[in-house]
């Protein structure tokens, strides 16, 4: 997908394969399979060009990033999507910055004291 975004216009499997081969060892058929899957999932468009297919991205990197962030940050209460991902901190439960600082300072103080008593 990165390679498709890098091309100006629609690219053939050969072009994508050439670009990828510069940095790693990859089979032509692998590239073909991946492009075909991207097309079926709607992330790339498949255009007929004579006997070959050309591919171009159906969406921009920015659009996909926006969709991903929207899903990842979705915290509408009661929505099933809030369960789909397990977030490190749930932005639906904001804390007051003061409470956070106090809790952190207390923990650091305790651990510093432990360090003093058990060298």
């Amino acid at each position, binding site marked *: 997908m990165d390679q498709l975004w890098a091309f100006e216009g629609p690219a053939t499997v050969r072009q994508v394969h050439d670009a990828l081969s510069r940095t790693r060892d990859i089979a032509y058929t692998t590239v073909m399979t991946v492009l075909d899957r991207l097309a079926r999932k709607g992330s790339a468009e498949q255009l007929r060009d004579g006997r070959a297919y050309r591919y171009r991205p159906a969406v921009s990197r920015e659009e996909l990033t926006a969709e991903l962030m929207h899903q990842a940050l979705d915290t509408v209460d009661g929505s099933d999507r809030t369960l789909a991902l397990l977030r490190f901190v749930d932005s*639906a439960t904001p804390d007051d910055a003061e409470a956070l600082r106090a809790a952190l300072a207390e923990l650091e103080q305790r651990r510093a004291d432990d360090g003093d008593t058990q060298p």
Partner: protein
Amino acid sequence: MTPATPVVLLVLALALTGPGPAALARARWPLRAPRAALVFWQAMALSALLAALGAGLSAATLVLVYQDPHPVVVALHSAALLLTLVVVARLLWSAHTLGTALRAGRRRQRHLVDLLGRADARAPGADVLDAERPLAYCIPGVPSRVVISTPAIDRLADDEVTAVLAHERAHARARHDLVLEAFAVLHNAFPRFVRSRTALDATAGLVEMLADDAARRRSGDVPLARALAGLSTAPAPPGALAATSVTPAARIRRLAHVPASAPLVSAPAYLAAAALFAIPTVAVAVPWLSAVTASLT
């Protein structure tokens, strides 16, 4: 069997869905033994469900022990049976719709992350996203993904990133999503006016504590606490205020006060969970089932 069986089971079911969860949610010991508490919640939910279904079925089968039942009695017992079947159907439907929605959402997320994520030496094993906001999460399932955004990595020290990734990997490895999914299925299956979020919120808090304990064993508790503080200062989206699950400050306070393992608290909790499940089964269900079998033969 006596006509009291359905009543006993119904009272038990009500106690385990109302006062039981409320008391457990207020208790302090789950902070010390989150794993045992999670087992206890599951035992309570399962026991409540079995008691409720048992109440309906035992009321329905009571008609079998009467010699010559009145039509009104038969109608009442049929209604009990019908109600039980409706509850079972709603549970199955809830499990199906939620499971489908969750799997579709996660599949889409995994697809997006695979397209957009890149590897980064500062967050080994994670998919790194070039996004505007700091965030870290895991997409559970097989295969799972641990995702962290560049602003989050920039904001945290190396050992703090390690703590975040250990926390998320613990979620993925222990399949915490399955526990939460089960409680969400139960929650969704009951009509809006009888259900409460108590169990769902409490279990969501407990799995965070479990993942925190895994992370602090890996990286120590100070880096984990700093990561919690560092990532939770992001402003919350408006209108998304639900003071429900455990807040980051509460999690840091827990790190300060509670040691990573507390077997003295866990053992009685496991015993109580087993008893909660076994006693109603043996004391009520076995006599009822044997009475029904006897009346049929």
